[in-house]
């Protein structure tokens, strides 16, 4: 049942992709996403795809995982494809009947959109596959910490993420228990229409919320008892160090990303207008 849900899928490993400093990894992922939308031509998209395929290969993430990640996206992909095919009417007409007219431009545009969305999802997925949630939280805190001088709650945000990660399995287990208990009293949680099901969730949600509040309260007391007083003057057990190798890998990646950006100009020079 609920217990089987896995959260923040992480595939531990020792590949260069895994070992890259998480801060650099986050920044590179963001850069990749941005570049995906700048690189607006065939060559750029090809490099983007090749780049991510290579990364997955290096990280030894099974292709099955990619498919599982993409499955929920299918409706969106189909929807955008249809939209692009019907509404982009530029270029040579390929098929035409009744009011439907599919053009070369439409097909090209649709393919480009599919590749971008897939690369976006698969690329950001790689970050969570190769970085454990704790490390990720740490990295986010450290990346955002310069902003805390401007009043941005970087430490608080990271602490919230940590506690959420810690409590989610506990609360899932609890939900499971409450559902069993209410079913034992004859509650019907898996049958009936949408409205009925939503209403049937009340006996599950109320105890769950109360429990979450109670836990939050107790956890706060326990944290205070262990001298918690916010982020000021706090040291960390886990230290992040950027090594020479990290810079090297990053430099390689930056070059690839630069190539994607430059591909626009290259294609123009070669005479392939977008």
């Amino acid at each position, binding site marked *: 049942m609920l217990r089987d849900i896995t959260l923040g899928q992480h595939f531990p490993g020792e590949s260069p992709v895994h070992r890259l400093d998480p801060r650099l990894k986050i920044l590179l992922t963001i850069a990749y996403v941005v570049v995906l939308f700048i690189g607006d031509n065939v060559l750029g998209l090809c490099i983007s795809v090749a780049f991510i395929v290579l990364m997955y290969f290096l990280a030894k993430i099974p292709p099955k995982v990619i498919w599982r990640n993409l499955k929920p996206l299918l409706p969106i992909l189909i929807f955008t494809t249809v939209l692009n095919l019907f509404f982009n009417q530029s270029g040579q007409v390929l098929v035409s009947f009744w009011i439907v007219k599919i053009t070369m431009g439409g097909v090209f545009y649709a393919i480009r959109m599919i590749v971008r969305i897939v690369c976006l999802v698969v690329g950001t997925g790689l970050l969570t596959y190769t970085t454990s*949630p704790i490390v990720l939280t740490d990295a986010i805190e450290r990346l955002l910490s310069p902003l805390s001088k401007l009043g941005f709650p970087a430490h608080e945000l990271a602490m919230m993420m940590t506690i959420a*990660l810690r409590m989610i*399995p506990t609360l899932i287990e609890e939900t499971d228990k409450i559902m069993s208990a209410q079913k034992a*009293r*004859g509650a019907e949680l898996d049958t009936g229409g949408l409205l009925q099901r939503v209403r049937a969730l009340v006996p599950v949600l109320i105890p769950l919320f109360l429990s979450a509040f109670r836990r939050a309260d107790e956890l706060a007391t326990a944290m205070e*008892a262990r001298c918690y007083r916010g982020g000021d003057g*706090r040291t960390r057990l886990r230290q992040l160090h950027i090594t020479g190798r990290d810079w090297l890998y990053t430099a390689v990646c930056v070059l690839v990303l630069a190539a994607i950006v430059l591909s626009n100009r290259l294609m123009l020079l070669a005479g392939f207008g977008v």
Partner: protein
Amino acid sequence: MPDIIRCDDLRFKYDEDRPWAIDGVSLPVDRGAFVAVLGANGCGKSTLAKLLNAILLPQQGTVWVEGMTTAEEDKIYDIRQKVGMVFQNPDNQIVATVVEEDVAFALENLGVPPDEMRQRIKEAMEATDTWKFRHRQPHKLSGGQKQRVAVAGVLAMNPDCLVLDEATAMLDPKGRKSIMDTVRRLNAERGITVVHITHYMEEAAMAGHVVVMDAGKIAMQGTPKEIFSRVEELRALHLDIPQSAELCERLTNAGVPMPRGVITTEECADLLAGKLKALPKAAVNETDTAGEAAEEEAGETVQTVPAQPKGDAPPIIKVENLSHVYNEGLPDSTVALHDISFEVAEHGFLGLIGPTGCGKSTLITHLNGLLKPSSGKIYLAGEDIWADPKDIRRFRFMCGLVFQYPEYQLFEETVGKDIAFGPKNMGLSAEEVADRVRQAAAFCGLAPDILNRSPFELSGGQKRRVAIAGVLAMRPRLLVLDEPASGLDPEGRDTILNQIKAYHKSTGTSVVLVSHSMDDVAKYADRVLVMREGTVAMLDEMPAVFARAPELLELGLSVPQITQIFMSLREKGIDIPTDIYTLPYAVETLLSYAGGAENLRKAGERGDAGAS
């Protein structure tokens, strides 16, 4: 200063319009002492704990910690570092997602440099025997392990004093023992002062000094020996009394004078062995087995084997070769239950016990069809419950299931509505529902005026009774309760278990009581099913199971102190049965072994004379 903590005339209340939760408590705690604070729920003992490290501040009086007072705001973190605190619920005090990082939490807060941090974490984790799972996730650990991680997290601060606020209340016997062993070792080897707040009498008996609280005041204090020999006062405070002391009291009343203040198993067994060995050979009445000597004492149950109900009525529940595999067919499949068969006769009372993780909970969730067996059959009142899967809901009403900590399922605005949830789901008429609610509430000792109140304003014990009433209101033919007494104080525990027994007797409803305490099962059930690793380890009448008490201990189950005394006597070479689990029967067995109270008294005099 010899005392590490000193409380001077503390008064504290949570709200202006509520009575004092702590009402004039003065208490010095010596450096290196092991102090147990004992008391019923709501006596103020947890409040006292929170006053000790400035989580709460007293409205009157002063708490001194190493010469600082908790009222000094700039000293607050020094005090919290000196007085480390471990709380009741292990899940609600672990912050990080990896064990090692959680232990680091306090040190990170204190700004300890990473290298020193590693050193201190290692030390703290080795001292609590948690080092081996430092890379695991907390939610994958057992309760006892989690609680030891919590102790390590506090220990890393290098505190002078550990305050355990009912830290053992939610653990199974094995987990409780591991915490007590750890804390006692820290106290003995490192001289860490321990303040242990509990309602387990056995744990308080291990302390050097016992403080008994009642209604925000200190009712008694002294050494465990002094406190536990004051049997009458303890009874008046609804606290447990060591069975050794009770046995001595009963023997004294039966004409065999026994000393007061005997509280440990060893002490009592030694005393009795001395007397029994001094018996003249001729007096010893060797053949004595369970049941033979059993006689009804006025108002008390001597252990008797109830006659099996005869007749053609099918058993209320019959389980045949039940197996359950989680995640069947997947690589991580685990066998939770393997080939389990048993039945409960109509009007029967079965105790189901086993260590944590043995599959008890998985088994009972099969009984009302919440889980479907991987193989095997379940018959409720003679019907195969999975004959027609669409019909399964009918069996949910026939087999009422009360989960552990059922009070956390309450959700309605009023107690009455909550109890009515089950009967309403059955589709009964409004009058019928109202009738059932009233009756179920009465069975659970809930006054009619409570029915209109919100369940969330009630005390813990009352909430639990509301939750049980919610299941009773469905009038199940089989009532299954998972640890109905866990986390309650002795009074709450006895109230609930007695109500269940009374309900069983007056309505004839069959009961399955799940527990890891043989004490509870012994008092109420007539047959016992002992589980081990998803299989049936024993299934028999009560005395036959108790005769195998050493095996129960090996399984990590707790057996009553009285049984342990007899086991110890047997080890000392006295040929006495060990299937003893009630006090009257224990007295009787001893007397009949000695051939009468007179013999035993004389032997006692001889034994004492010989000893002096």
